[in-house]
């Protein structure tokens, strides 16, 4: 009897006759962690969605536990024992943890107290410190993921597929998550694990499969891979550009002071914080999740309001700036590239061109500026070429683009406004290595063109790779500034923690 719990043979999935992946052979063994790697748009998510019953195969066969199957819906796959934990959690935010856990199993007369007791016991059994009575909308990313996993285990899943589970987790939460994976595997559950963090795949997975352009280009035991070999397989070329700041760079000199933030306070999140940003430089802003970096940036860009009384000053090119909404900030030349592109980065049912035109209309001073389809197409072509945007067709909706390409559209939408100051918040979160290099290069080019650039990131190698000067944020304040020449991972992390 085969060890494989899932097998795909000659599998092809096409949308509008354009294949997302073609002629793929893939197998998942019982009780293994199988990492699925590849650039955005390589076809990983589609492949796993076929396994989870979201899509049906166009060609080829899917075997589950030795039997050929064709799941019509995700619910059918779940009943069979295949659960998928999506990048964006599928929980109902207005319901409690327990209600989400038992969603779909409600009885005529639900006794909530009993439900909470059951949920508490179940979660404790899995070692999750989550309050079953808490409303899901109040939970952090890590806890939401725990609930998703608990739901999968509750449905007695034999296969759990994780789509970028660690993208939003803190280092501590990641450690907890990996321990949990090991426990799931010990219980005989097979795990498919899509990630862009190659180190995580190398550390956790038993086997690794690399996809490129809808095909499997490498597959085998994790021990047989190195970081470099995975990257080469993923992008089909050797990346001469260094992702993680291994090449010594010379920091760019200070330009004019573009932004001066003085004693800024915003609720309890930003506390009397001061910093400056200079043109022609990339200012990296590092801090642990919750340190207040995003909030500082959002106050500057008019997305959040500072304290009414003595909330501090923001000066753009020496002039006091206070925005109630982002539009005047955009007109003054400040753009903020969101960390949560799916929620507030773009309109997912519109095309890339239409989204780009919205960026242009934001900046337009004429209130009678109209939407023009030809202009949208022109923008899509112009920025698509500049940022090497990959999309199935011009009419593809944003939701159909890969994470990296979505991020490029969000960036292009901001740059179209010809800003003086660009704030990138986690610019490469959920983006593949190939696109990371391109985005880093773009950030570097913007600084070379004389623009003031701020990069907020929780990923220290990224900060060291792109920044000319580094600001460390802790508990709502900029607590340390260092130049690239004096910054080391240890020093930056020490400042962020102590």
């Amino acid at each position: 009897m085969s060890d494989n719990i899932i097998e795909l043979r000659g599998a092809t999935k096409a949308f509008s006759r354009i294949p997302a992946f073609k002629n793929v052979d893939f197998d998942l063994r019982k009780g293994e962690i199988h990492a699925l790697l590849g650039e955005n748009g390589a076809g990983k998510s589609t492949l796993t969605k076929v396994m989870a019953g979201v899509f049906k195969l166009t060609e080829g066969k899917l075997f589950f536990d030795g039997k050929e199957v064709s799941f019509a819906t995700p619910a059918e796959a779940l009943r069979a024992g295949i659960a998928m934990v999506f990048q964006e959690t599928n929980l109902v935010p207005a319901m409690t943890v327990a209600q989400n856990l038992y969603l779909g199993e409600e009885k005529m007369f639900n006794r909530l107290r009993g439900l909470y007791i059951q949920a508490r016991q179940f979660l404790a059994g899995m070692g999750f410190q989550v309050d079953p009575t808490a409303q899901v909308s109040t939970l952090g990313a890590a806890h939401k993921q725990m609930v998703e996993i608990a739901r999968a285990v509750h449905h007695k899943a034999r296969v759990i597929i994780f789509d970028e589970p660690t993208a939003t987790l803190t280092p501590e939460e990641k450690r907890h998550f990996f321990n949990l994976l090991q426990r799931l595997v010990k219980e005989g559950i097979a795990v498919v694990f899509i990630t862009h963090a190659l180190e995580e795949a190398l550390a956790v997975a038993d086997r690794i499969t690399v996809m490129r352009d809808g095909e499997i280009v490498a597959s085998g035991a994790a021990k047989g891979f190195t970081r470099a070999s995975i990257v080469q397989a993923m992008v089909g070329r050797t990346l001469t550009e260094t992702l993680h700041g291994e090449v010594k760079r010379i920091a760019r000199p200070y330009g004019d002071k573009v932004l001066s933030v003085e004693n800024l306070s915003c609720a309890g999140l930003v506390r009397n914080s001061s910093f400056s940003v200079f043109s022609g430089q990339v200012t990296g802003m590092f801090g642990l999740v919750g340190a207040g970096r995003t909030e500082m940036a959002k106050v500057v860009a008019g997305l959040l309001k500072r304290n009414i009384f003595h909330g501090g000053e923001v000066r753009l090119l020496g002039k006091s700036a206070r925005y109630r909404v982002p539009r005047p900030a955009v007109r003054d030349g400040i753009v903020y590239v969101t960390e949560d592109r799916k929620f507030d980065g773009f309109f997912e049912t519109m095309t890339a061109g239409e989204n780009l035109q919205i960026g242009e209309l934001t900046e337009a001073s004429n209130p009678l500026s109209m939407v023009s389809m030809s202009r949208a197409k022109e923008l899509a072509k112009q920025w698509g070429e500049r940022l090497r945007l990959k999309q199935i067709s011009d009419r593809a909706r944003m939701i159909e683009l890969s994470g990296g390409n979505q991020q490029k559209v969000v960036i292009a939408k901001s740059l179209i406004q010809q800003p003086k100051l660009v704030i990138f918040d986690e610019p490469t979160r959920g983006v593949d290595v190939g696109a990371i290099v391109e985005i880093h290069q773009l950030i570097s080019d913007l600084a070379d063109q004389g623009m003031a650039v701020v990069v907020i990131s929780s990923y220290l190698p990224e900060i060291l790779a792109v920044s000319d000067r580094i600001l460390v944020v802790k508990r709502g304040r900029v607590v340390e500034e260092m130049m690239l020449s004096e910054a080391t991972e240890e020093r930056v992390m020490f400042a962020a923690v102590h």
Partner: protein
Amino acid sequence: MSAVSRLFDRFLGRGDWAVTVPTLDGPLLPNQGLEEAELFAGLTDADNLVRTEKGTLASSANRLMRFDADGKPEVTQEFPGEITALAHARGMTALAIDGKGVVIRGGLHDGREATGEEAGRLSCVTALTFLDSNTLLVANGSASLPASAWRRDLMQKNASGSVWRLDLKSGRLELIRDGLGWPAGIATTGSNRVYVTEAWRHRVLAIDLASKATVPVLEHLPAYPARIAPAFNAGYWLTFYSVRNQLVEFILREETFRKRMLAEVPEAYWMAPSLSSWRDYREPMQGSQLKQMNVLKPYAVTRSYGLVVHCDQNMKPLSSFHSRADGTVHGTLSACEADDDLLVASRGGSRIVRLAKVASGKRG
């Protein structure tokens, strides 16, 4: 509308009423440059460094000193009052004596003394520079207070400073600009423009001598600028009285408290910028982030500080040298280049320090 807006700003503490201070970052990022600098000479009330053909001139209260390359001092002359400003060109030294105007020693106008209206108007000279052999540009800090009363002028929120052109031949005085908040430094640019520091408004102005048009070239400084010394590479060295802090900014807006402090507290113990600290237990504590009994003392702000900034020819800061709250090279009011080195006079620290190889871009 603007009056209503100003009223709201005052009530909410924003706009002109924001009690905020720009941070020392970027090219002004604190370091230990001044603290680690080599001692050139010990000198009480060291100030007014000027490079001449025969060595370096400096003032120590009412004494004019000359230092050779090794820092060996020699008293050149003593004056009846404190020397508040010094300039040297073409073998001619111009000195300002507190309350007595400008005198010239050596060169074309040797022995010239200020008299009459000139002495009366130029009673608080803070900076001097030669425009040519017969013309001096004079910064007069205040119309009513002597140069030594700079703290009082700041805390009284005066703005009666002025810049004058003094014809040394005729003694004619021409007003270039008045209504300034303590002009403390002045430098020529090689064109019709001159740079003037306006200490209490934390900025450097460019004034056109022909049209008298004034443009700020460096604003929102985190410290009170003092003198401007030319740098070899066409830039400038900018010195500072002390750094600004939120507590002093707050007191400057709290009229009742400020007036009571001026009336009832001896000047040495005011919560105000200072050239030195830790000289008396009755002074306000200074520690920047002083912690006692495990409680951070927000009032223990930095009052005295040492700061010298290297700017380019357009007054854009390039780099800086600091003596922080716990240091001693404070009150660095003047600097001058000596070959590849930079000499900095610390009035608060009673010394002159030498920053080796920082001039002419030969650092390190």
